[in-house]
């Protein structure tokens, strides 16, 4: 399998070229276009149809699609939902922890499981962390340009929790708050203090800031609204 990341850094897209029979796994909904004969399969995790609406919007579900080049080579493009960079990372026995929203795609030998790791409520209500294990290539993305910081065990690195995309489990972290805080708005200013040896990936825009900004533009719930939720190309619920 070959991969290419095009149109970086602001609106990066991942294109993979599969030989016949080769497979790639991706976040459901990430497929942008494809060339060639492709078979696809969806694995659904966490959530029966009844809870689906709410669960998808709260970020609690995690659906992956598996694509296979069928009878010939195929080229498939995957796009993250958010603007920003895509990072390819090789896993060889070392795990990777990432924000659930950061997962884009991975090769077959990688398994992703949701983990609370004592982090419930850390990033946002309902948002969980994925632990990727196995061998292969992981592709993750984030809002904005992504920088990587290598910690060498000597000092701690403190960052606002909205800006953490992924980190190696060899790092330990502590939750702290900004000092002398008098009051908060939508999101607590939580700071993560990383220490130890390993890499942490940070992005340059915060989803929480964007969510606060967009708040007044959202429609207000009315008693008459039937709960039909538009979810981009697919409308869930309603009928």
């Amino acid at each position: 399998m070959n991969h290419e990341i095009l149109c970086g850094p602001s609106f990066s897209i991942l294109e993979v070229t599969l030989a016949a029979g080769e497979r790639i796994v991706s976040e459901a909904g990430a497929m942008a276009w494809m060339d060639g004969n492709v078979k696809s399969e969806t694995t659904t995790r966490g959530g029966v149809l009844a809870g689906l609406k709410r669960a998808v919007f709260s970020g609690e579900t995690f659906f992956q699609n598996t694509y296979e080049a069928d009878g010939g080579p195929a080229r498939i493009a995957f796009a993250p939902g958010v603007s920003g960079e895509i990072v390819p990372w090789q896993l060889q026995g070392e795990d990777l922890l990432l924000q659930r929203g950061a997962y884009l795609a991975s090769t077959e030998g990688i398994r992703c499981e949701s983990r609370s790791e004592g982090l419930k409520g850390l990033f946002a209500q309902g948002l969980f962390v994925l632990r990727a294990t196995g061998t292969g290539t992981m592709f993750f993305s984030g809002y904005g340009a992504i920088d990587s910081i290598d910690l060498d065990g000597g000092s701690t690195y403190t960052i606002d929790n909205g800006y953490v995309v992924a980190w190696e489990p060899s790092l330990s972290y502590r939750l702290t708050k900004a000092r002398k805080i008098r009051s908060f708005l939508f999101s607590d200013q939580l700071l993560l203090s990383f220490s130890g040896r390993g890499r942490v990936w940070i992005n340059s825009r915060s989803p929480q800031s964007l969510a606060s900004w967009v708040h007044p533009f959202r429609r207000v719930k009315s008693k008459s609204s039937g709960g039909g939720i538009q979810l981009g190309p697919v409308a869930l619920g309603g009928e």
Partner: protein
Amino acid sequence: MHVDLSGGGLFARALVHLEPGEKFVSDAGAMIRASSNIDIDVTTGSRGKGGILGGIGRLLTGDTFFLSTYEVTDGRPGDVGLAPTHMGEVREVNVSPDEAWLCAGGSFLGAASTLTLDTRFQGLRGLLGGESLSLLRVSGSGTLLVSALGMLTGMNVDGELIVDTGHVVAFTEGLSYKIDKVGGGWINTWLSGEGFVMRFSGKGQIILQSHTPTRFGQMLGPLLPERQA
């Protein structure tokens, strides 16, 4: 104090380096990270109160805001990384005592505490909803950081220029302006899709942004889950 801007393209961020005794103020949500010797003091304020300012920050229509003030605690230099909410550029404006600047609320990223900030709220609630214009008057001497959705363009105005209000980032106080409708009559204005425009005249500098957060928000908002009132 000095500021390093990094990240060309849409994801610009600012690294503010502070010496002991210097203070910097920013929207509380803008901080990415801070060196361990920086003290962060988050305060709230509301419109109309004396002192810092009212009406800026991430809320378009709310009356409260959250500001963080950063200073070093231990006599050594320190730094604070700041990021705006939107995809876009960041620019440093050097404000000098001979001319104050007016900065659109949503475009304010941060300012040295040597500057005086006070609100000049316009109270515009356009027909199209979500349209409001709050201006911050920035005077004194020091660094002002502004940010954009998209690209920032600085222009010298000498004569007249008509600007859609959503594209105004900041301008020098010497420019006169009038808030107006774009077409003749209200129906034409509504159909044209434009909210309000600012008719600038005189001589001065203006900084514009290429895209409008309000328009982007109006497109995005209805597609997101509904909220409580």
